[in-house]
């Protein structure tokens, strides 16, 4: 089983950078604990781009981590499905559209993909992650570590239910 953990956002924009920040901490933790049985690729990006389909292509299960603006709960975990929307109007891409591009370009179903959205508070230039977000990230990190040891059925069970309060 090969996992891809992809955190995206701009680290120069306060809480927008929480996805890359969390993935980098997870990578460090994973190496320190020598939990090398799982094959995990840790990847960070400023934003999703069409070429990420080639990263998805070589993995069996995908976890994307993003900052949320106006997310109602501290964090939300959900399963992603391809959706051919027209959200690509700038240099960014929704995760659902990325899966749709996978379908359109590679002409096969993408691997099971999930999104963890952690609510951000301050997206200003040059500010650090806010204390509230750091606390949320700690809990999100525990949640991701559990997920990585769990079978896919558990991922599906958690999707849509886990909101950071459970």
């Amino acid at each position: 089983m090969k996992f891809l953990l992809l955190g995206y956002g701009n680290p120069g924009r306060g809480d927008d950078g929480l996805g890359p920040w969390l993935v980098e901490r997870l990578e460090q933790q994973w190496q320190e604990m020598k939990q090398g049985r799982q094959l995990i690729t840790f990847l960070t990006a400023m934003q999703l781009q069409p070429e990420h389909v080639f990263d998805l292509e070589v993995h069996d299960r995908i976890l994307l981590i993003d900052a949320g603006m106006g997310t109602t709960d501290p964090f939300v975990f959900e399963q992603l499905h391809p959706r051919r929307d027209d959200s690509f109007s700038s240099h960014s891409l929704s995760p659902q559209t990325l899966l749709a591009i996978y379908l359109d370009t590679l002409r096969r179903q993408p691997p099971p993909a999930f999104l963890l959205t952690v609510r951000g508070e301050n997206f200003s230039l040059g500010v650090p992650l806010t204390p509230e977000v750091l606390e949320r990230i700690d809990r999100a990190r525990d949640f991701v570590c559990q997920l990585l040891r769990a079978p896919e059925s558990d991922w599906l069970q958690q999707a849509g239910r886990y909101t950071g309060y459970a």
Partner: protein
Amino acid sequence: MTEQRYRHLETATERQNLRRVAIDPVTRVEGHGKVTLLLDENNRVCQARLHIVEFRGFEKFIQGRPYWEVPVLVQRLCGICPVSHLLAAAKAVDRLVGVAELTPPGEKLRRLLHYGQVLQSHALHFFHLASPDLLFGFDSEVEKRNIVALLRSDQFRDIGLEGIRLRKFGQEVIKAVIGKRIHGTGPLPGGMNKHLTSSERTHLEKDVDQVISWSQNGLDLIRRLYHANADYHQRFAVIRSHFLALVTGDGGHELYNGCLRLKGADGQILNDQICDQDYPHFIHEKVKPWTYMKFPYFAKLGPEEGWYRVGPLARLNCCDYIDSPLAEEARREFMQLDQGLPVQASLAYHWARMIEILHCAERIRELLADPDLYAGELMVSGEKRPEGIGIIEAPRGVLIHHYRVDEEGLVTKANLIVSTTHNNTAMNESVRQVAAEYLDGRELNEPLLNQIEIAIRAYDPCLSCATHAIGKMPLEVSLVDASGRTLQRLVKHGDGSLAGG
């Protein structure tokens, strides 16, 4: 002699009873820009401006930081060209530690990194942002004008895929040199921190011939599209300007090092071999009250005559040759567009960009075979100095980083003149040209407004730091009368849907 033929449209003389149209934000450019048009009762354009509405304050953000942190910090300016800022800052920091010239391995590794960056950035712009307009048509349905629609179409799917793979390869080059696709490390004050490994070489070499072939396909595509509608491409958003670019000591095309050359609209070289450390004597900036972005100009010529363009078009117009055979052959053909004189058509930027993609691919192949990438001294040291300037050719044009530090090495002054700022007057002039030639006297609609955006996008502007929230911004077009009353409003949401109000 250059001119701003449409300068009279920068400020309306009689503002009463004019309607205001805002294109806010301009889509598919990096950052947040806004175009406003003032129209009279007959829809005649009386004023057209490109504004920058977000003030970054990034230079302030750098002040007080130690100089050795700067190359990493500045990568956060932009999600598309962080490596350009990394390299410009690294060159400035080299000067701060008294290093004017790197070891051959150090310089070649940085060049490899830079070619990867330019290749991936140009591929993003051409295939993701510009080609939907070029392939589907400038007035096609708004839902079609994006990379997703390109990939969904049977006709253009292969072209879109090659574009994605080109960009991916550029990112793999970056990753091999600095460890990550974005925000990696590699350049140090006075050199680089590692060689390329033989496995990294094998990984890149297996694809590089294919990459050259895809680059040639992309070049063939833009050449074909340009000639198929030559009159339109030669006339649309055309302005007459000078051009500024780095060139080698003997006038060759240059992206990483070299000196500045200013070439006039008539092909005369107005100034040549300006050393990067001397730029403050030659380039000044003018401030205007209606935008945050400054207007650089060549000091000797003054702000009215001394404005210029930078970027791929400027680099091809300024250089005497390109030192890779396929790109040089393409340059010679390209320069025939205006019979050997500097090419002035703004849409020719796309063609120039594709020639540079091919050049970068050729140079990457050549460098991968160079033993200096795999062994030899990486670092050089010197005597510290309080001031350092670094200039490179970023994908979008001349990029200047200028720092002063105190005795403890903390930054006391930072001045960044980014490529898009150099093109400020030119972009405004192109917007005014399109407004005057295509919109004047006509009822406004989305395809017409898209013409303005196409003119701006040709320059591939990077207007502010990227956040992935940009794609969620709506496009809002408002008609406002002289008393401030909104007459009509059109909103294009992040998902592409349109709503009236």
